[in-house]
């Protein structure tokens, strides 16, 4: 570190109260921004959990569908037509619906039921207990062991329950990549059992899942499905559609954006004001440095260094604090939906740089304005 920056460092950290206030301001801002964005990211991720867990390459649906949980049943010819399109390796139906489960204790619990194609079980979850073939046994269901598992009274293989007055039997426990958004447990069964056990409308296919022969076939398949009046989306497109729905059509995105903006403004205000006071208090010293022979660019480098160091430390503390909070929250609250992504870290970093930039700009302007002559005049 050059001597002039070492002076800047000592001026900064030796003023403990100001330094602490600066750090608190930036840490608080980063903490709030990271928390807000992480929760939003977690919610979005969970909102697409079904798509991510089933992991089909192409999803065919009614164009009005905006998320996996609110499917609009399609007639059987959609599946037949999909199977006849050139470039389709295979196409299978998927049932997606809700049911009320009567547990052993007599309590009722809502659950999401996923019905997998009987012949292929395409989109099946990874089993952690039980045998996959057992799904074809009478009344068989797999239960997903996620954050909502306890709501089904933590069933074991062999546990019985009632589903719409039908007997249900747990034949396996499965794990999935992501839990759902609405705190409802998920159970898997075959497509035929699902449509038998759960009352439904005239049409029963929630989605048609397509495996294309190659990536280059996807565009053609999408065009052909569109001609039927339906929509074929790749997994990423469907996730994006769900994300857009929650971000722009539920008010969730705007609210989180506002909270993030408020966090940013609070952080900027605290840090900017404190840094400005810090500069004001040292203004005469900067003037004295100028009189002694320090050049403008040296003073600018001192201020930029002070603002950058404070911001980076505050950023680290803020991210650390937010991460710790999330870890602790997840230990206590299994449903807590928050995830820190590189995008969030990068965004918070950019915001912190803006805070540092604005604070520096205010300080630099003030310091460049001070004339050594003012120091002489006292």
């Amino acid at each position, binding site marked *: 570190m*050059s*001597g*002039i920056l*070492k*002076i800047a460092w*000592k*001026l900064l950290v*030796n*003023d403990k109260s100001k330094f602490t206030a600066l750090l608190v301001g930036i840490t608080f801002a980063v903490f709030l921004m990271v928390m807000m964005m992480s929760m939003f990211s977690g919610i979005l991720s969970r909102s697409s959990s079904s798509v991510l867990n089933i992991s089909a390459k192409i999803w065919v649906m009614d164009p009005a569908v905006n998320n996996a949980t609110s499917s609009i049943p399609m007639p059987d010819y959609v599946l037949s037509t999909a199977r006849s399109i050139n470039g389709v390796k295979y196409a299978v139906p998927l049932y997606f619906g809700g049911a009320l489960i009567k547990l052993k204790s007599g309590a009722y619990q809502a659950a999401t039921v996923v019905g997998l194609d009987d012949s292929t079980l395409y989109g099946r979850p990874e089993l952690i207990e039980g045998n996959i073939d057992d799904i074809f046994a009478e009344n068989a269901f797999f239960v997903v062991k996620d954050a909502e598992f306890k709501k089904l009274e933590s069933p074991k293989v062999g546990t019985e329950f009632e589903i719409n007055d039908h007997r249900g039997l747990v034949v396996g426990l499965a794990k999935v990549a992501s839990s759902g958004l609405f705190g409802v447990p998920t159970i898997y069964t075959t497509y035929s059992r699902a449509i038998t056990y759960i009352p439904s409308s005239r049409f029963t296919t929630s989605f048609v899942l397509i495996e294309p022969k190659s990536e280059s076939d996807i565009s053609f398949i999408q065009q052909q499905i569109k001609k039927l009046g339906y929509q074929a989306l790749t997994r990423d497109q469907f996730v994006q559609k769900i994300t857009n729905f929650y971000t722009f059509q539920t008010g969730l995105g705007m609210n989180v954006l506002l909270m993030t903006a408020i966090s940013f403004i609070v952080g900027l205000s605290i840090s900017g004001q404190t840094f400005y006071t810090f500069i004001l208090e040292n203004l*005469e*010293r900067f*003037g*004295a*440095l*100028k*009189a*002694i*022979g*320090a*050049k403008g660019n*040296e003073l600018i480098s001192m201020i930029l260094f002070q603002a950058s160091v404070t911001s980076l430390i505050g950023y680290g503390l803020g991210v650390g604090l937010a991460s710790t909070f999330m870890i602790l929250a997840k230990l206590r609250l299994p449903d807590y939906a928050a995830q820190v992504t590189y995008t969030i870290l990068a965004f918070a970093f950019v915001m912190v740089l803006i805070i540092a930039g604005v604070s520096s700009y205010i300080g630099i302007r003030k310091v460049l304005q001070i*004339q*050594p*002559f003012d*120091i*002489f*005049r*006292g």
Partner: protein
Amino acid sequence: MGKVAIKANGLVKWFGEGDTKTTAVKNASFEANFGELLYIVGPSGSGKTTLLSMISGILKPNEGAVLVEGKNLWEMKSDDIADLRLNKIGFVFQDYHLFPRLTTVENVAIPLILKKMDWNEALKVSLEYLEIVGLKDRAQLQPVKLSGGEQQRVAIARAIAGHPDILILDEPTASLDGDTGRKIVEFVKTNILNDQRCVIIVTHDSRIYEYADTIMKMEDGKIIGFERNTLTAP
């Protein structure tokens, strides 16, 4: 007296325009030589500080020229003027302007650090200057823990640490009691002033006049006379 350190030629400085125009310095010309202790004296508002600022490259005159060791100061670029201040001129400000968050030795090291000297080397050299002003044992203290006289001596150590040819002290005794003030100026005269250095002191403290080689009197922005000191300095 040695050769000319600073030469001011017809310096004029005014502030404001129109009805608010105030001329602070009017056609000031003088020379300060190496080996000379020059006092600029006069009542408050006589233009002493403005004149001092113009000859030290801090305030640009409206008219006139300043030659520092023969170079026309105000024809230089601003960075060159800053370099000249750093390398040729040492300042002792009226209120010292020491950095309260730095230790005494770090304060003294500032001009050396601005000259790009290595941090540890600068501290080492600064200790030698603190020894000159008799404050080596105070090196690690913060300035607030020093008395007014000690702070003044730290400011002097800082001013001379950069090895300047010209040392400028602005009202060095203004916030000191008479005894301490006299000791400081006596110290400057006996330990700091030499044939390779010119010392200019702005003051209106008549108690220290006896130490001056030359006293330049100002009044109402004008230099009204020079006086060679015939008093026997201690």
